[in-house]
């Protein structure tokens, strides 16, 4: 079986699936993963669980690969004279919204635009400044009666920007966070077809990461993996991001290091990357990793966890930019780490100071 990674990623970047309402994206990922897994199911919170069985004798150790599939977006809170008022799903800087193309998921999908009212129409002290979300409106181009009949409070609004390739390897679009990482897991599954592996591999597309980490807490509980890896996007160097938290775009995935990460896992990923000459960068995460690993690590009696990052420019805007090379490298690294996990390696995931 084969699958073209870039068209698949572009398909995912064209779909809605806001936190808590991931069905539109889940079906597409399920279709892509089905040929590469032995079982596929959906959790009570809507996360997608694919199981690819390993070769070791049962009970086999399990590695869980988690990438969240939910996207940030907007939700209708009111209708005024044919215009929509709205709030956010996930964290959105209101300054990126004026002039933004969106789709209102009403009785049917309606193209629309987020608009900034003229300064003369907003609260006088707001004039001239970036408007808070409560001052912005959505214009569907339809007349007020039609708006009333097609749209209601609570309807979801997703970004409409079409994914665009700037070159062979550079792609921008909305919800690269975190569908770029779903593509990483997909690349890993593609490679695992040709590799014998001892461990069971659980490919998981989690839900609600942008709001509650709901998928990150619940999927590992159901699966009870031996180790868990969160794949998520991280900051690429570029305008507004140039300190120690930002990494080179196209310079390789990052390997997280910090309290959410088990050092033995970090070291294993790092040594495989070094051995195979896979470009990578070490990402220091002094506190919350900002990923599903924060949740997964404390599920049940605790799970050794790891974070792989895909550098991305302009996070939480609809023009999130990634390097497809970094996605392929991360998928390759995951597959090769899995290939190298023997059944007895379960014992190697431990603290150095207990090594007696």
């Amino acid at each position, binding site marked *: 079986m084969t699958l073209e990674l870039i068209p698949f990623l572009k398909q995912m970047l064209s779909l809605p699936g806001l936190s808590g309402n991931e069905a539109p994206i889940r079906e597409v990922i399920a279709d892509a993963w089905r040929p590469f897994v032995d079982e596929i199911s959906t959790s009570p919170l809507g996360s997608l669980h694919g199981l690819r069985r390993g070769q070791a004798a049962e009970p086999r150790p399990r590695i869980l690969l988690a990438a969240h599939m939910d996207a940030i977006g907007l939700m209708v809170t009111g209708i*005024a*004279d044919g*215009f929509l008022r709205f709030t956010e799903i996930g*964290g*959105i*800087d209101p*300054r*990126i*919204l*004026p*002039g*933004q*193309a969106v789709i209102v998921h009403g009785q049917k999908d309606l*193209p629309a*635009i987020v*608009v*900034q*009212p*003229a300064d*003369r*129409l*907003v*609260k006088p002290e*707001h004039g001239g*400044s*970036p*408007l*808070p979300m409560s*001052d912005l*409106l959505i*214009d*569907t*181009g*339809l*007349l007020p009666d*039609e708006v009333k009949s097609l749209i209601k409070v609570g309807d979801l609004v997703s970004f409409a*920007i079409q994914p*665009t390739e*700037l*070159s062979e*390897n*550079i792609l*921008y679009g909305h919800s690269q966070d975190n569908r770029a990482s779903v593509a990483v897991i997909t690349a890993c599954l593609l490679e695992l077809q040709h590799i014998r592996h001892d461990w069971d591999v659980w490919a998981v597309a989690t839900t609600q990461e942008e709001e509650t980490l709901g998928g990150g807490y619940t999927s590992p509980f159901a699966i009870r993996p031996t180790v868990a890896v969160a794949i998520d996007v991280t*900051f690429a160097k*570029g*305008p*507004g*991001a140039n300190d120690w*938290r930002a990494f080179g*775009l*196209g310079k390789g995935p990052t390997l997280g290091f910090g309290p959410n990460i088990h050092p033995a896992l970090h070291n294993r990923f790092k040594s495989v990357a070094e051995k195979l000459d896979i470009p990578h960068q070490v990402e220091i995460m002094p506190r919350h990793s*900002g990923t599903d690993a924060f949740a997964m690590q404390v599920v049940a009696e605790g799970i050794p966890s790891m974070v792989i990052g895909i550098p991305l420019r*302009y*996070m*939480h*805007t*609809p*023009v999130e*930019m990634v*390097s497809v090379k970094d996605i392929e490298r991360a998928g390759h690294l995951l597959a090769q780490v899995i290939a190298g996990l023997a059944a007895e390696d379960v014992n190697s995931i431990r603290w150095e100071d207990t090594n007696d």
Partner: protein
Amino acid sequence: MTESTPLSLPEIGVEQIALLERLSNAVAVSGDESEVRAIVLDAVKPLADECSVDALGNVLVTKRAQVENPLRVMLAAHMDEIGFMLVQDDDNGLYQFQVVGGIDTRQLPGKPVWVGRKHIPGVIGAKPIHLQEAGESGRTIPLDALRIDVGPGNGGKVKPGDRATFATSFQQIGPSLIGKALDDRLGVATLIELLKHAPGNVELLLAFTVQEEVGLRGARVAGYAFNPDLAIAVDSTPAMDMPMWDGSENNRYNTRLDAGPAIYIADSSTLADPRLVRHLAGTGDRFGIPYQFRQPGGGGTDAGAIHTRRAGIPSVSVSVPGRYAHTAVLVTRFNDWKNTLQLLHAAIQTMTPALLSELR
């Protein structure tokens, strides 16, 4: 009292929308109007009696009258649009840029753009919300903190000096025509339709102007060159017909969508010729074509440069109302455009030299 129309008025159909779509999607930032000019020349050459491109790049078209000593009527619509110019290569696909024309910098972050004549795709990004300090989202991101990003490794595809604009594709949605640069591609398309249906009672002088957005510069020399008896600038003007923040009545709307073409009485650069204002409004009343008066004040059109050429040229402006002018996207109504075209056509057809015989 409306009389049933004895006039044959042009309609907007699929062909006209397709032309507007091509015009809207073209990139023609002030100073490099070539992409729109090519579309205009293509459309007007077969119909014009005379057609030339002047020193600034204006397209000047003459359609002669079928009568002796006709009124010489100039219509102006600008081909250029607001946008950006790349000014410095910062490496890694990133370019510093400046704005060309009046753009609110609050409209820039998070937008896709097209760069240069080949429409190379890029984006204007924004700092991730996760890396912001408390209160940062209340401050406007200054232009010098923004970059046009065409992607690492793509630096060879663009260069400082290239123009860029918002990457917005035209759409027709319900009653609306939505796209970038409809200010003033609607005017350009209107002039092309008027040429196709040129009334024979006047000499029609069409100026497809350049550099309107940076100071009405094309219209200035076009008005001089044509030396018309009167001039009408055909443009798009803001409709601010949105709800007030506190629910109170919005009485500063400038114009409203669905209320017809906006006739100017006064803006910041022109006190319209009252004879022309009366003629336009009278034409609307007479033939039942909706129109509105633009709320006086602010703004300006090519008429501002034309009316003070030579010894003075009686001038007025008529605009298609549009929401969100000078942003990535304008929302306008099909009916407002159709009524603008028809009002202008009817007004020109009914013009006689007597229109200017009484003193202003």
